């Protein structure tokens, strides 16, 4: 579904990715982890075509992004939903208008249909009724994440990109988010690519995980990856927090 080959990303002299390979199959939940500043968000932006890679190729649904014309691009955009690390809701629109933005553009202008779909999206992400009239600046951090997810789900995409969806959520909401994601994943045949630092989320939801180290990616099932001798991976998977998270999912 997603195939990245030999990706090189540079900002001036700073090399972020150096021959990174990544592959995501249909129907899986793929987690991307790595230290702060290792280029997870940059990788996501590259896959989405928001940043041009310096070298290497990116394919979505088996097609390279470069060869698409405007029509094909619009068709592709409707197949995936994205949440950005900081929400990126349009600040001058209410939550409801944010959710309706892609719907209005690609689906329908009927007010009842828009209202119905808005309510559905807000219900799915667990935003209480009444939130839809608020402006992004009036939301808490966690509510912003949910509203962004609601907007990403509006077109009922088959592929979901999430940049740190549980960061800033309280543990109970984060756990509820994991369940929601698993549920949507199983019921809606979703493929999910998720950047996360949250070990609980990682072990609970991700079938495979890719770690960005030294500009390259090492991927595998979480438990298999935990055996990798690289010091960062060892520290990540066997630190005090990791142990607790692993024990929980074992038991």
């Amino acid at each position, binding site marked *: 579904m997603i195939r990245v080959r030999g990706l090189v990303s540079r900002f001036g002299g700073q090399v972020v990715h150096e021959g990174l390979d990544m592959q995501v199959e249909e129907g899986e939940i793929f987690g991307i982890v790595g230290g702060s500043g290792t280029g997870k968000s940059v990788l996501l932006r590259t896959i989405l075509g928001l940043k041009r890679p310096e070298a290497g190729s990116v394919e979505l649904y088996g097609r390279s992004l470069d060869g698409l014309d405007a029509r094909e691009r619009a068709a592709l955009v409707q197949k995936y939903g994205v949440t950005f690390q900081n929400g990126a809701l349009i600040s*001058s629109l209410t939550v409801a208008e944010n959710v309706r933005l892609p719907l209005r553009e690609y*689906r329908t202008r009927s007010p*009842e*249909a828009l209202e119905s779909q808005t309510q*559905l999206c807000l219900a799915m992400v667990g935003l209480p009724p009444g939130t839809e009239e608020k*402006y*992004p600046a009036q939301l808490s951090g966690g509510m912003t994440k949910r509203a962004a997810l609601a907007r990403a789900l509006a077109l*009922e995409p088959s592929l979901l990109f999430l940049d740190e969806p549980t960061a800033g959520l309280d543990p109970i909401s984060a756990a509820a988010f994991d369940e929601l994601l698993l549920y949507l994943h199983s*019921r*809606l045949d979703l493929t999910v690519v998720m950047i996360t630092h949250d070990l609980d989320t990682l072990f609970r939801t991700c079938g495979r995980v890719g770690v960005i180290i030294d500009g390259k990616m090492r991927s595998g099932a979480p438990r298999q990856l935990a055996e990798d001798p690289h010091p960062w991976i060892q520290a990540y998977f066997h630190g005090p927090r990791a142990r607790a998270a692993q024990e929980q999912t074992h038991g």
Partner: protein
Amino acid sequence: MRSSLALEGDGDTWKLELGGDWSASALGEIVEQLDSLPPRLRGTLTCDWTRAHAPGIGPVWALLTRLGAANPGSGELRILHLAAPSHLRFLEDLRDARAEPAPSAPCDGSGGPIATLGRWSLAQGLRVREFAAFVGRMVAVLTRALSKPRALRASSLVRHVQETGIAAVPIVSLIAFLISVIVAYLGAQQLRLFGADIFVVDLTAIAVLREMGVLLTSIIVAGRSGSAFAAEIGVMQLNEETDALRALGLDPIELLVVPRVLGLVVALPLLTVIADAMGLAGGGLLAHFQLHIPWAQFVNRLHAAIAPSTFWVGLIKAPIFAVLIAATGAYRGMQVRDSARELGRLTTLAVVQSIFLVILADAVLAVLFVRLGV
């Protein structure tokens, strides 16, 4: 394959046949057809999904909420599903868990003209107070900074002089030159009727030095830098950068506003001098090539026409206008809250109001100078 929805039956047994495209992209069409369902239903309703193609969550949700609305007092309608989509239960749970929207807050819209007037006056009053507080804090910080030059943040000041002053030299020069050529040209057309060509020199010199040099410069700077101040500070407001500064114990007025005001107070007089020079050059060139007035005569006439005060009366206005422009821009920037639209609105307002204030101040000063006899 169009989506379809057919209700059959009567009395107590109903059958709802769902067919065709029920995917997410058919949402609009399906919601339209839901309107045809009767407002209330009772008895047993069987939804037959066997012929619905790839039902998406959106359309199924729309149907469920519609059926829920047709059955307000629960129990009157029993709903069965045949070949239900896999996510039906999930959506049913979701719908049941979702409470009714809370009644909206009492509306504050109406209340008659008196109430509207009251609210408006209150808002104006608050605005005046806010503005007074801003000016007061700015003056306090300014006096503190002037008495303790170390707090002046020289590097920031230099940057603003560079950005608002030096970078504006080309455009200010060009416009001052062109406008004075136009004024001299039109003046010459009239004066020639009286054979008084030479007075073109008086005309351009006095107009440029007293009014046009400083006024044109101020208007250009208001458009260039007043908007920049509002936008820069406004974006910082949106990103909570100003809050972060306050939380760090730093005063945004001292850090952001005062350097801009002082920078412009330095830059605008310098730009005015340049505009004056370019304006005189424009007048001189026109006089030379169009009216064939020799350079020497032009310079002599210039000496006779202007007193030193002509130049100073123009220049003295520059720092006053600078304060007006910079303070308006910064103040509007500090008012930005919450959204990108506000940023646009207040940036526009900053430019419009600073130009208005500059012209108003110019009129007041003109009267004042006449009274003072300069």
